[in-house]
């Protein structure tokens, strides 16, 4: 992340020095104030969703949802606690219904439950992020809204292709993430097994 970030800023600055050096600083300020505006909007959105969420926990709705999806989430996220699975389920439901505002705080909570205290992301955390970044929305409401505002004759005819494209990208992401975690585990196994062999030979002698 540090490298990507530094390269992005450096390359942009080089470009700006050539084109319009005087605007560099004001662009950075406008980026930061975009963040400020976004943060204020998000406080409002999360305040409502986190309230409804804690009500959902209170009436047992989140536990019920968890029970419903557990066969699937348990298989995908092996070895995670019940609480983590509950947040994962809720995050997926919110994403499917297109409630992005609700999905983010849930995703953050799910990540907190999944962390193992180390500085490296676990395989399950990565899988969770991959699924979240391929968007599993059923109906892309924002885009349909934009299309109809732009005067489209059939604004919702993108629903089916979007759904298929999302499905394919999510499945690809899950498969790739699983392959990567298997590869790493295989590598770890080898490292553990190697010192065992001479030991075994010694015992035999």
């Amino acid at each position, binding site marked *: 992340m540090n490298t990507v970030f530094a390269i992005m800023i450096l390359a942009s600055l080089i470009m700006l020095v050539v084109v319009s050096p005087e605007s560099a600083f004001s662009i950075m300020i406008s*980026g930061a104030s975009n963040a400020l505006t976004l943060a204020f909007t998000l406080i409002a959105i999360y305040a409502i969703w986190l309230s409804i969420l*804690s009500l959902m926990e209170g009436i047992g709705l989140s536990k019920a949802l968890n029970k419903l999806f557990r066969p699937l989430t348990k298989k995908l996220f092996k070895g995670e606690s019940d609480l983590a699975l509950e947040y994962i389920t809720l995050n997926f439901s919110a994403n499917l219904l297109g409630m992005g505002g609700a999905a983010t705080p849930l995703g953050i909570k799910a*990540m907190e439950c999944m962390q193992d205290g180390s500085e490296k992301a676990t395989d399950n955390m990565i899988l969770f992020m991959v699924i979240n970044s*391929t968007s599993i929305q059923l109906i892309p409401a924002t885009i349909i809204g934009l299309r109809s505002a732009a005067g489209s004759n059939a604004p919702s005819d993108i629903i089916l292709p979007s759904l298929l494209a999302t499905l394919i990208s999510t499945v690809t992401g899950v498969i790739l993430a699983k392959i990567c975690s298997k590869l790493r585990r295989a590598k770890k196994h080898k490292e553990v097994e190697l010192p065992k062999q001479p030991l075994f030979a010694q015992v035999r002698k």
Partner: protein
Amino acid sequence: MSKYILPVFIFAVIIAAFIKKVPVYDNFVKGSKESISLILSIFPYICAVLIAVELFSLSGLNAYLAKIMSPLLGALGIPDELCELLIIRPLSGNGSLAILEDIYKKYGADAYISRCASVIVGASETVFYVGTVYFSTTKVKKLRYAIPISLIACYIGAIVACLLCRIM
């Protein structure tokens, strides 16, 4: 139809809470409080990312990269006009919506390009934003293979999107 889902859902939750004697007001106070502390912890990440994104798109680097990458993307069946959108999509949600609107204006909302662009935006997420915000309250510093795989998956989705728009 879909506009009724949200209010009905919230109504049902509050009614259920009322019946089960879950304190509604207390929970709203608690949720709002949590919201502020959540934003306080994710704001530094959002801010850093958005500064870089703003520099990236306003310096013209984005358009420049799009020009360089267009032959490669063309070979994968993605039209030239969408290169800029594809580059900004994983970085900024608002940025990609702005480009999407430009595309609608330029080509009309029902053109092939516009439909492709809509499906690409609808079937992907702001990968870098998800990566920074989701991990922001954990101790995790190394995301390992998370971002490359997310990007690959999103771009495969984009290729499929262009293909689907041609046949559907």
